[in-house]
């Protein structure tokens, strides 16, 4: 009876291990946040401050609107 219970307990533990969900975002140091820039100003677009996440975010939003929303460029539509 005891080995059977141990076996059942082991199976339960192994079964629950499969339910675990790993974090998908890499830990700091292995992934590189885009707002940290490339370390070179040569190809960096103007309008944001390297290292400032809020500034990068605002720049991307503005760039999306000005570059891809042509309704902003036309007087009427």
């Amino acid at each position: 009876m005891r080995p059977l219970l141990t076996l059942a307990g082991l199976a339960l533990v192994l079964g629950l291990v499969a339910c675990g969900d790993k974090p998908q975002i890499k830990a700091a140091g292995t992934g590189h946040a885009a707002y940290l820039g490339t370390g070179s100003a040569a190809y960096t677009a103007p309008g944001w401050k390297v290292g400032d996440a809020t500034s990068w975010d605002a720049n991307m939003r503005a760039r999306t609107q000005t570059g891809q929303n042509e309704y902003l460029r036309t007087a009427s539509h």
Partner: protein
Amino acid sequence: MARMKFICDAERCIECNGCVTACKAEHKVPWGVNRRRVVTLNDGVPGERSISVACMHCSDAPCMAVCPVDCFYRTAEGVVLHDKDTCIGCGYCSYACPFGAPQFPSTGTFGMRGKMDKCTFCAGGPEASGSAAENDKYGRNRLAEGKLPACAEMCSTKALLGGDGDVVADIFRNRVMTRNKGSEVWGWGTAYGKPISGAPAAPKAGKS
């Protein structure tokens, strides 16, 4: 933080393949590998539509779930990337991907199938941003340069929208409200999930 997403407006795509060319040129993608391609639906039939397809950087990426060596990861911006140093070129991701995004060069370390290559949303890879190693393996890291993906920025009709999900969805919604048709956004539900019932309604569309 922005959650990067793609939308392709089938009402606007003219099958010019400018996005494909922009991607190829920007990242020096080799022969036989197309990170992005234009697919025509009902070709030759009146009302045919074309859409530009690449990795959609899914919210719950199936490639990530099936990879036996766990080479995929998600950046803080919501971009799904992979580590070519870990990839064994098994091809499981290509079977799992609903968009056919994973590509395999015909000559590589593993017999006739090399390490997987796919759209990076112009966000490079795990190497240092803007480094030569990153450039060699994954191409340019435009996001770290404060730019958006080359395909979307190059699109002549602005059919392909790429950027923060909220912003591109807002731009697309404005278009649909203006033209009163073409609200079908191919792949959006598959990649980013369908609206949850009981969730607050989307903000009222307006000129933005």
